[in-house]
């Protein structure tokens, strides 16, 4: 009897020892990450309700919701918010479609597949400054390939200054972002495709389903659980893109490519209004969280109205 209780105590002791060990192994990482993230996040939250003195590096005074009020009443900010959502949607929509198609291609057998895979992964490692330079040159008014190509083939009669048009400039930045985003999503789609049961396709093929039927009735529904999170992650990442905008247009022309992230940068490090910038950063955070939560909330609503399956 005594021995028995002793044994329990020992195992309990061992158990808590393991807990201590586990915690001590992970603690340095947790401290570093949360000190670098959490403390700044709280700091940003506090100064979003304040006026911050950039010279003396302290809070001048608290202004309650004034920063947020200013932002809501600012037409430029509101259009930046809408632009950010549009920009994010365009990028993740096209990235998802292209990556899905490329992943299907890479799932086939053909000569030169290994080379193509390297080429497809490559843009991920391209620094976004380089991709900014690269697409800037591609769409350059004097020396760009696009102007030369369109001019030579007679589609345009004179060279166009692509980046001078706000709407075109925004989409050029989107192109650069999509090009950089394709590699990763393609790899994830590819891993999804490789884990699919091949029996379903064979059975459908035997039953006489054609390529399109197999695509829309089998592949598409099977891939949807992988595609939705990828789509959302890309949406979130696209909304925080900064480098390409900074290199290509600096938010111009006429603010036409100023997304929320760039707006925050300008408020913080060009006009040095840290309070307003922090408030805007929290608006971006709220939008980000909203985007991430959309699927689970909509699922709950659907379940509520149509019952749990």
């Amino acid at each position, binding site marked *: 009897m005594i021995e028995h209780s002793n044994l329990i105590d020992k195992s309990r002791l061992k158990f808590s020892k393991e807990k201590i060990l*586990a915690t001590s192994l992970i603690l340095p990482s947790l401290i570093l*990450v949360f000190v670098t993230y959490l403390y700044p996040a709280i700091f*940003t939250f506090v100064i979003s309700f304040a006026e911050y003195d950039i010279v003396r590096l302290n809070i001048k005074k608290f202004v309650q919701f004034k920063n947020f009020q200013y932002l809501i009443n600012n037409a430029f900010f509101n259009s930046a918010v809408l632009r950010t959502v549009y920009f994010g949607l365009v990028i993740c929509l096209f990235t998802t479609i292209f990556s899905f198609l490329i992943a299907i291609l890479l799932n086939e057998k053909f000569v030169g597949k290994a080379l193509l*895979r390297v080429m497809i992964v490559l843009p991920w490692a391209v620094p976004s400054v380089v991709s900014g330079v690269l697409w800037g040159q591609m769409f350059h008014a004097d020396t760009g390939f696009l102007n030369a190509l369109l001019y030579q083939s007679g589609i345009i009669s004179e060279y166009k200054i692509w980046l001078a048009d706000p709407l075109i400039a925004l989409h050029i930045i989107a192109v650069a972002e999509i090009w950089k985003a394709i590699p*990763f999503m393609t790899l994830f789609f590819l891993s999804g495709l490789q884990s699919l049961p091949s029996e379903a396709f064979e059975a459908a093929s035997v039953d006489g389903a054609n390529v399109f039927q197999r695509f829309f009735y089998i592949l598409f529904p099977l891939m949807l659980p992988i595609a939705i999170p990828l789509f959302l992650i890309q949406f979130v990442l696209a909304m*925080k893109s900064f480098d390409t905008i900074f290199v290509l247009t600096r938010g111009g022309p006429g603010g036409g490519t100023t997304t929320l992230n760039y707006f*925050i940068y300008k408020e913080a490090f060009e006009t040095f209004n840290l309070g307003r910038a922090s408030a805007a950063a929290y608006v971006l955070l709220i939008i980000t969280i909203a985007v991430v939560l959309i699927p689970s909330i909509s699922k709950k609503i659907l379940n509520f109205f149509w019952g749990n399956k």
Partner: protein
Amino acid sequence: MKNRLVLKKIFTYFFAFIVFLIMFFPLYGLILTSIQPENIIRSRNLSFFPTEIIFTHFVEVLKPNHISNIYEGIKNSLIVSSLTAFLCLILGFPASYSLSRLNMPAKNLILGALISVYFLPTILFVIPLFVILVSYQLDDTILSLVVPYTAFTLPFVIWILKTFIDKLPIEVEEAAKIDGCSVFQLLSFIIFPLLRPGLIAAFIFAFILAWVEFLTPLIFTNNLKISTVALGLFRSTIDIKIGQQAAAAVITLIPVVLLMIFFQQYITKVVLSGSNK
């Protein structure tokens, strides 16, 4: 049936060619611009193949007093990226082992919290960090880049290493434990060698992510005492010489592209290993 197979083959190769063109042409265009004289770049004749190859742009860019300051940039970027990657491994390796194998409360919560911070807007953290760095006069130092980079990349590295450790056979560890192996011996003599592909993959990820980072150095090195390659290249965009700009871009690209080509299988492994769980 055979006709259909041939048709499929043709379609596959055609599609593969298109994809190759779209993904590779921008890079090819950059290389083309970097090795052609300025007057050919600016001429209106469209040529997809170099008519005259010169390396003067590279020579100009590599001169010590060039605006992009490429030597300084490469040196700093190498130091910062390697330090970041090493720190990430040193901190991330034990952490991921703990998350993967040891008994700990709220494991999934910790992992989830770590991963989710990666998707939060960077600018949210950058403003206060900037204020802190300036108030302790730590801006414009290598440290001011390495610490934030490590914090930004560490969650990713922990996730990569965890997926690799999850795949290791647990029997080896159990046998070692029975033989009286302590955790530190276990980590350094048994897990470490087995985990080599994972460690390489994580190192490359961290290195590349640090190499391409732009916003952090842009803000934290405001006095431009230290420069990274990305910053140097950006400064060269102020200049109008297209050829030199392209050459600087190519030089910035070379290290990461080489890493990518040589270790491509590790990168792919990371993603592919995460799926079939």
